[in-house]
C-alpha cells in the first residue's frame, strides 16, 4: 500500500481491460460448468430487474399516495422489501443524450386555458408555477405566447439588421453576434395580460392559469447598445427603437432608448445555459427586463432607431389599458410589483393539519424585491416572509413562511414591496383607479381559500 499512497501528486490510472478476451471466455466457460455460479446469478438478477421495472410503470394509481402510518407488521414494505432499483442494473450513461424529466413528473406541463382562444397558433400556454422551485423556470416549461405559430429557425440563415437613425445600417449573422462579449442575467418575463382573467371576478382555478404567463430564466446575449454603437446609432435624437420579429406575425414593439443606453436590453440567444428554445424565439430574441413580455420580440430580425414611437398593432390595439373614463392608457410597459403564493394554491388539497411551508414568488419591473408579507386570515394580520437568495433586480424572488395549519378555513395572501417603496395593491385599490375592464397589468394581491376539507380555492375577498 505504501507505494501508491506515497506517490503524491500523481493520479493513479484506473484499471482498464483487466480481463483479456481470452480471460472473459474462460470465465464464461467456467460459469457454464457451474464453477462460477455468481456470474449466472448476476446476469439473472439484471434481467429480473428489467422485468420488475416494467411492472412498476403499470402500478395502480394509488401507488403515488404517500401515507406514512406507523407500520403494523413491523415495518413499511417500502423499507423492508428491496425494490428493483436497489437490486438491479440501471441505465447507462447517455441513454438520453438530452435528458428529460422523470416520468413521474409528467403532470408538470404547459397548459392552455380552454376557451381562451380559438386557435393554437395565436394563443398562450401557462407555466405550472404550482410545482416549480426556486426562481428559474425550466426552459421546456417556460410559458408561450405566439401570434402566428412558432418556428424552429435555421440559425445559419438567420440575420439581424439595424437601420433607421444610424450612420451605417448593419447586418449581423448569428456567428457574428455570438463573437461579441456576452452577459448573462436572470430576469422574469411576464405577459402584460397575466392574471387578466381575474380582473373582474374569479375565473380560473389554479395559479398556473391565474399567474402562469410568468417565467424566469438566465438569459445570455449581447447588450443591444453594443450593436447600436457598431452601427453608429444617433443616441441623442433617436429616442425610440422599433424591435421587429422575423416570423409571420413580424411582431413589432417600441422600446425607449433610455432603457437601451442603460445596457439592460439584451439581444439574447442563450437561456438557462442552452440556446433559446424554439417556442421562446430561437435563435434570437430581445430581452427587455421589467417590461411586459410582448416587447421581448422573438425571432428578432431587425431593430430600427427612430425619433417617434411606432404605434404598432400590439401597442395601439392590444396591450392598452381601458380606464373608467373611456380613455386607453397607451405604452403601458412596466410590470409593477407583484407576488403570488404558489403553495398552497388553488386546485390543491392539503393532506392533513400540521406544518406546511407557505411558498411563493415576488417580482417587480422596477428593481429588487424588498420584502414580502403573508397573511393567513384574508389580509387582517400579516407576517413577514423569508426572502431566499438570490434577490436580483427584475427577477423572480422566492419567499417562504412557516405555517401550522389548525384545520380551520384560512385565506392565504402575499403582499410584496419593491426597492422603490411601492407596495402591491389590493383588488379594491386597483379597481378604484382602473375600473374592472382594464385587462392588462393586474398586479393585485391574490387570495387562496384553504377549506376545512383541505381543498384550496381561488377566491377574491371583500
Amino acid at each position, binding site marked *: 500500500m505504501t507505494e501508491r499512497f506515497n506517490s503524491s501528486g500523481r493520479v493513479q490510472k484506473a484499471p482498464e481491460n483487466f480481463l483479456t478476451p481470452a480471460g472473459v471466455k474462460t470465465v464464461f466457460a467456467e460459469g457454464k460448468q457451474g464453477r462460477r455460479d455468481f456470474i449466472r446469478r448476476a446476469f439473472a438478477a439484471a434481467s429480473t430487474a428489467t422485468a420488475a421495472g416494467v411492472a412498476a410503470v*403499470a*402500478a395502480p*394509481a*394509488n401507488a403515488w*399516495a*404517500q401515507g406514512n402510518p406507523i407500520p403494523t407488521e413491523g415495518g413499511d414494505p417500502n423499507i423492508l422489501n428491496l425494490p428493483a432499483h436497489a437490486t438491479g442494473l440501471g441505465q447507462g450513461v447517455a441513454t438520453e443524450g438530452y435528458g428529460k424529466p422523470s416520468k413521474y413528473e409528467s*403532470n408538470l406541463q404547459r*397548459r392552455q386555458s*380552454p376557451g381562451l382562444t*380559438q*386557435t393554437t397558433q*395565436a394563443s398562450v400556454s401557462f407555466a405550472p408555477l404550482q410545482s416549480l422551485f426556486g426562481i428559474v423556470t425550466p426552459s421546456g416549461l417556460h410559458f408561450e405566447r405566439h401570434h402566428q405559430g412558432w418556428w424552429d429557425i435555421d440559425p445559419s440563415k438567420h440575420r439581424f*439588421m439595424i437601420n*433607421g437613425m444610424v450612420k451605417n*445600417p*448593419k447586418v*449581423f449573422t448569428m456567428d457574428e453576434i455570438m*463573437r*461579441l462579449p456576452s452577459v448573462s442575467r436572470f430576469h422574469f418575463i411576464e405577459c402584460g395580460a397575466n392574471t387578466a382573467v381575474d380582473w373582474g371576478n*374569479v*375565473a*380560473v382555478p389554479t395559479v398556473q*392559469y391565474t399567474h402562469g404567463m410568468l417565467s424566469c430564466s438566465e438569459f445570455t446575449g449581447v447588450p443591444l447598445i453594443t450593436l447600436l454603437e*457598431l452601427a453608429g446609432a444617433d443616441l441623442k435624437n433617436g429616442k425610440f427603437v422599433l424591435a421587429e420579429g422575423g416570423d409571420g*406575425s*413580424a411582431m*413589432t414593439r417600441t422600446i*425607449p432608448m*433610455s432603457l437601451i443606453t442603460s445596457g439592460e436590453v439584451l439581444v439574447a440567444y442563450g437561456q438557462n445555459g442552452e440556446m433559446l428554445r424554439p417556442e421562446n424565439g430561437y435563435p434570437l430574441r430581445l430581452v427587455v427586463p*421589467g417590461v411586459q413580455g410582448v416587447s421581448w420580440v422573438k425571432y428578432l430580425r431587425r431593430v430600427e432607431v427612430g425619433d417617434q414611437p411606432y*404605434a404598432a398593432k400590439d401597442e*395601439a390595439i392590444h396591450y392598452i389599458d381601458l*380606464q373608467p373614463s*373611456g380613455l*386607453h*392608457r397607451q*405604452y*403601458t*410597459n*412596466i410590470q409593477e410589483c407583484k407576488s403570488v403564493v404558489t*403553495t398552497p394554491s388553488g*386546485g*390543491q*388539497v*392539503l393532506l392533513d393539519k400540521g406544518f406546511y411551508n407557505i411558498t411563493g414568488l415576488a417580482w417587480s*419591473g422596477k428593481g429588487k424585491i424588498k*420584502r414580502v*408579507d403573508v397573511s393567513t386570515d384574508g*389580509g*387582517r*394580520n400579516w407576517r413577514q416572509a423569508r426572502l431566499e437568495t438570490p434577490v436580483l433586480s427584475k427577477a423572480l424572488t422566492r419567499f417562504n413562511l412557516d405555517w401550522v395549519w389548525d*384545520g380551520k378555513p384560512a385565506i392565504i395572501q402575499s403582499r410584496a414591496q419593491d426597492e422603490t417603496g411601492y407596495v402591491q*395593491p389590493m383588488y379594491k385599490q386597483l379597481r378604484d383607479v382602473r375600473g*374592472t375592464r382594464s385587462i392588462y397589468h393586474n398586479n393585485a394581491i391574490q387570495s387562496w*381559500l384553504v377549506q376545512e*376539507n*383541505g*381543498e384550496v380555492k381561488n*377566491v377574491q*375577498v371583500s
Partner: protein
Amino acid sequence: MFKFPKIVLAIAIGLSFASAFAQSTKYPGVGRDATPKEVAAWDIDVRPDFKGLPVGSGSVAKGQDVWEAKCAQCHGIFGESNEVFSPLIGGTTAEDIKTGRVANLTRTDFPGRTTIMKVATVSTLWDYINRAMPWTNPKTLTTEEVYAVTGFLLNLAGVVPDDYVLSNKNIAEVQKRMPNRNGMTTAHAMWPGKEFGGTSKPDTQNTICMKDCKPEAKVASFLPDFARNAHGNLSEQNRMVGQQKGVDTTKPEGSTGKTSTSAPATSTAPATPAKAADGKADNKAVMALLSKNVCTACHGIDKKIVGPGFNDIAKKYPGKVDYIAGKIKSGGSGVWGAIPMPAQNLSDADAKLIAEWIANGSQK
C-alpha cells in the same frame, strides 16, 4: 507655394480620420453594412406620421373583393365575426368620428371592444395588414391590396364613403376621421423612460400594515361549482409528490382531502404514450395536421364554426376521399354558406390523409 502643403495637410487629416474611425471600431470583423436593397426588403414599418408608407392606392370596391377571398373566413363578411379572432368592426358611430372618442368605451354594459373602437392611428391598421395578413400567408398582399382592404374596413366603420380610394396622399385626411383618434393617453407611470413626459407616480398606493388591518375577510368571488372540472382534472396538473396534492375535480368537492379514511389517492399514473398499433396514431397524426394547417379554427368535428363540421361533410360526401381532398386543395364557396374556404397549401398526401379521416367519420 502655400496651396500645395495645404492639400497635403488636408489629405493627411483625411487619412488620419479614416484610420481613426477604423481603429475606433471596437469589434473589427463583426457585422457588415446592409445594402439599400436589404434594408428596403425588411424596413416595412409605417409610423403614425406615415413615415415608411409606400406610394399607392386601393379602392373600397377592390377591398371588398380581396376581403371576401382572403379575410372573411377569419373575420366575417363585415369584420364582425368573433369566431376566430376578436371582431374588427362595430360599436362606433358617426358622432364618434366627429369627436374622436368612442362613446361606447365609457359604458360598462357594452359587449366587447372591437378593433375600430380601440385603434387611434390608421397607420396601425395599414402596417399590421401589410406585415401580418392574411394570417396563414402573411406579407403576400400587394401594396394596392393593403390600401384597398384598409379602405374597405374604414368603409365598414363609416369612416370613408363607398366610392373612396385610399392612398398615401389622402391617408392623413382619413386619420382626422378615426373614431377613437383622441382615445389614448400616455400619462401614466408604466413607461420606463421619460420620453412621453407622463408621470412617475404609480396610480395605486398601498401601505404596509401588519395587525388588525381590516375587518374579517369575506369571500366575495369564487369559481362556481359547474366550473370545477372546466380546466380538466387538477389532480393530474400537480406534482405527484410534495406537501399537497392536486384536487380530483372529476369527483364532487370534499370527496378527497383529509376527511377521507385512507391516504388520498388523488393523482394518477403518468399519461401513457399513445399506442401506435391500435389506429389511434393515425388520428393523432391527422389532429396534428389539422392543427398545423389551422383547419380547426373554422371546422369543428361535430359542429359548424365558420365552415361545416367534419361529420356533416362526411354525411354529405360519404367515402368520397378524392373529392374532399380536392376541395381541401382548391378551396371553394357557396356549398355551405357565403364565406369561402381559401385554397389550402399542403401536400397531396396530407390532403388525402385528412380527407380519408373526414370521409371515415372523423374521430378524435
